């Protein structure tokens, strides 16, 4: 038994204990579970930081912890932590205009469970772990997106999500079956051997495409992105944030593990497909975001586009792809959560729409500045981390000589800047028709925003972090 498995165990323990305490002395208004979860997650995160990143240990032949998987786990834990913090006002009466969420402990339990599923995905050494982890990371999300039971939008979102999700599960399993059929085993090693030996086998490729399509759902790759805007729009805001970051991150981890693991011999073949998908995805995401008026839906399209940039990097070499994508995930998570925190502030007593931002520049300049920085980070404007992140993503594709793709993506990024600027415009330039409401910011939100903003700035300026990632990846 090694310390490397500790985070995974702790997270299950945390989940279980939250549920247990709730069962034991559950009061609807109790905040014990909230404090337990965020403190627990913080502890786990600290633990993740101090773990050694240069070791590689496989447990029971099916669960492998490496530096890279630990990095992914950092993302997941951070994301869960943010979700927990983000969700705090949603369980309080008057914390959100949409209504109060109930079953707080269950909520955190589900989040933690999901996070464990994600841990499993990035630790997988075979298709089985991968499958179970993936499902564990996905099925709870269906529940979460329907968490606002009395809101018909939330339920509709959940319905759409689960039906499309099941279809994707079907495709995933089909894909696995072909991979298994070709390689004769579920372990990555065997698949890798087979791929090396006959990379052009049609059945194998069919399986790969099935898997790709299935993971395309999670990753919101065009044309499998259709659920995302509706689900993001309908689900409760903390859940939307969780889906947009964690679910995406786990899908990316999944794809990275496959593409640079067992499917590495097919990389030349996958490259083109990934690039085409990336191009289409970012374009559709950007176009879709152009005409939005609702913040969560807007974020859905924005994150579709971001997914496009991310998979573009998978055309690059393993080192470049891993380092740039993991770096970008952190950056993206920080920016996304910052936006969602602002949405939650705005949504406390108003619609989560563009209109609600009006007058912020005058009324609450600091918050507006944070919003602007965040949007610029998402748009890839220096010196914020988003710039560095995108730069690394583009560099990964450029390294293999896909310069025209880089131009295309960079131009796409210009389009994205347009709609990010639309938000800036709402916040700063457009004069509100009615007197803007006073925005209440509680301490959790304030502290979180400060931390996230400083992360966005410092990640782009201080090289320590990216160097660490690079060192771990190599």
């Amino acid at each position, binding site marked *: 038994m090694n310390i490397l498995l500790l985070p995974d165990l702790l997270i299950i323990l945390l989940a279980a204990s939250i549920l247990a305490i709730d069962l034991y002395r559950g009061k609807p208004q109790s905040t014990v579970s909230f404090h337990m979860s965020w403190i627990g997650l913080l502890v786990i995160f600290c633990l993740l930081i101090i773990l050694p990143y240069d070791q590689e240990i496989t447990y029971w032949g099916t669960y492998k912890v490496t530096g890279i998987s630990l990095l992914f786990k950092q993302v997941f834990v951070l994301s869960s932590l943010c979700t927990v913090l983000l969700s705090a006002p949603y369980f309080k009466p008057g914390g959100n205009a949409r209504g109060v969420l109930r079953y707080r402990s269950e909520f955190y339990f589900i989040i933690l469970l999901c996070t464990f599923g994600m841990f499993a995905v990035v630790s997988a050494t075979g298709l089985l772990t991968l499958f179970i982890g993936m499902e564990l990371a996905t099925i709870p999300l269906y529940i979460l997106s329907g968490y606002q039971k009395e809101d018909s939008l939330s339920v509709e979102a959940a319905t759409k999500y689960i039906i499309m999700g099941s279809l994707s599960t079907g495709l995933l399993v089909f894909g696995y079956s072909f991979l298994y059929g070709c390689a004769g085993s579920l372990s990555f090693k065997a698949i890798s051997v087979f791929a090396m030996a006959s990379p052009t086998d049609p059945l194998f490729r069919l399986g790969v495409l099935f898997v790709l399509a299935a993971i395309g759902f999670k990753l919101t790759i065009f044309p499998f992105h259709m659920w995302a805007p509706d689900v993001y729009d309908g689900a409760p805001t903390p859940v939307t944030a969780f889906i947009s970051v964690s679910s995406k991150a786990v899908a990316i981890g999944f794809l990275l593990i496959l593409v640079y693991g067992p499917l590495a011999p097919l990389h030349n073949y996958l490259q083109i497909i990934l690039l085409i998908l990336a191009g289409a995805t970012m374009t559709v995401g950007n176009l879709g975001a152009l005409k939005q008026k609702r913040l969560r839906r807007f974020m859905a399209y924005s994150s579709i586009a971001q997914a496009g940039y991310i998979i573009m990097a998978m055309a690059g070499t393993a080192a470049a792809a891993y380092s740039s994508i993991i770096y970008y995930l952190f950056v993206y998570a920080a920016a996304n959560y910052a936006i969602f925190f602002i949405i939650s502030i705005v949504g406390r007593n108003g619609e989560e729409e563009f209109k609600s931002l009006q007058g912020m520049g005058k009324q609450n*300049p600091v918050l507006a500045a944070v919003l602007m920085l965040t949007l610029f980070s998402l748009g890839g404007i220096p010196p914020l981390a988003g710039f560095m992140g995108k730069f690394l993503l583009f560099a990964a594709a450029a390294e293999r000589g896909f310069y025209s793709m880089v131009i295309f993506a*960079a131009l796409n990024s210009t389009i994205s800047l347009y709609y990010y600027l639309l938000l*800036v415009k709402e916040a700063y330039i457009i004069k509100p028709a009615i007197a803007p409401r006073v925005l209440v910011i509680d301490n959790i939100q304030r502290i979180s925003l400060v931390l996230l903003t400083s992360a966005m700035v410092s990640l782009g300026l201080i090289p320590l972090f990216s160097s660490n990632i690079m060192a771990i990846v190599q």
Partner: protein
Amino acid sequence: MNGPFLLTTIWIMPFAIALASLPVRHDNHRLIKMISLVGNLINFILIVVLTLQFIDVAGADPAATTSSSSLFHFAYKTSWFKIMNIEYNIGVDAISVLMMLLTSIVIFCGILASWNINKQVKEFFILLNVLVAGVYGVFVSLDLFTLFLFYEIAVLPMYLLIGLWGTGRKKYAAMKLTLMLVAGSAFILTGILALYFESGLSTFDLNLLSQVRFADSFQYWAFPIIFLGFGVLGAIFPFHTWSPDGHASAPTAVSMLHAGVLMKLGGYGCLRVGMYLLPEGAHMWMSFFLVLVTINVLYGAFAAIRQTDLKYITAYSSVSHCGLVLFGFTAMTFTGLKGGVLQMISHGLMTALFFCLIGMIYGRTHTRTVSEMGGLMKVMPFLSVAFVIAGFAGLGLPSLSGFVAEVNVFVGSFANPATINRVCTVLAILSIVVTAVYLLRTVNTVVNGPVSQKFAMLSDAATLEKIPVTILLFCLFGMGILPGWIINLVNNAVNPIFNNLMR
């Protein structure tokens, strides 16, 4: 003071000013303005010190540096992002020093010119200073990554500066300007990534990259995208359309800074990154760009004739004059390159003066439509005389800086013996007649003629407003009458670039 330290201080200073303004109370306008003013004054002094040190180090004798291999002085580099071998790599050559000097002058004048802004003052000055920091950053960077980074920092604050404090169709103009420039930088980004990988060195270091002989097939496509990418900011035809709308909508100081300095980043990039690193590509594409730029020069001038808004006229004239910057570069001769650089400086001063004056005139007359004005000479002689002089600087009157620059551009461009260069030179020279036509029409209508009743009570410039105008006028005359030291400096800087171009 130690050179690299000085350089770092200079680009950090505006950021520091912005930070220093943060804790100031919102309604304490005076303090915010004073912080900005004093900070930029200090920076100006630092840059003057830098210039003097530079002259000391680099020597003003053109003969001494003909064989010089090191282009940059006060160079310092240290690793920054290990992940892509990104370095904090600074250093300056004469072009950068002069452009920094220009920037410091323009921003100082710009702050004075925007002294009467009273809407969200804090944000305005913070953004303005961030923008300036970006500009300085570009000029001191010897690392393509940081250069690009600062380039973007310089471009983005523009959106809010125009969108919030602008006039007219400001939202549209701000968005168009930002998006077109960022779209241009998409090409730049690709270009520098390509340089990084294709060089085989995995470095963004300008000095190292300049010694690489890139494959012709690579240069063939990389050069145009870099040139066009920077060219967008240099208002190259047909990507100049952000400029009229943007300049027309922007507040005074922003117009000054943008037309005066920011547009020069385009030319600077074309020269420093495009032509310096990819000389063979430059040779392959030059006639194409020459034609494009000639269109710029003529087209801007002709389009300006029919404009009715003072700022539009100046904006189109900027298109035409910035065309001359690139026109000088595309000549691919020593004198042409030098002329382009000189034109950057000259146009920076001139157009800053123009926008400064227009801002002040607009502040009084509340109209920018030329036909509604007239006879201002009677009521505001100081501003009017300055306006006339600015006009003459624009049409290249000797003794003002425009002549020195333009004649260098033309002599340089003619020195390229290709027929197309010759033809384009003649066309470009003829454009100065058109320039004379629209500038004189404008100046005459605005300044001369009978003074209309509604303007009869207007006042001339206050002392505070006279300062920036006087500074800029002084610089225009200084460069026009005694161009020697500037030219010597530019000679030194252009030499290595030219040698690279001719290798």
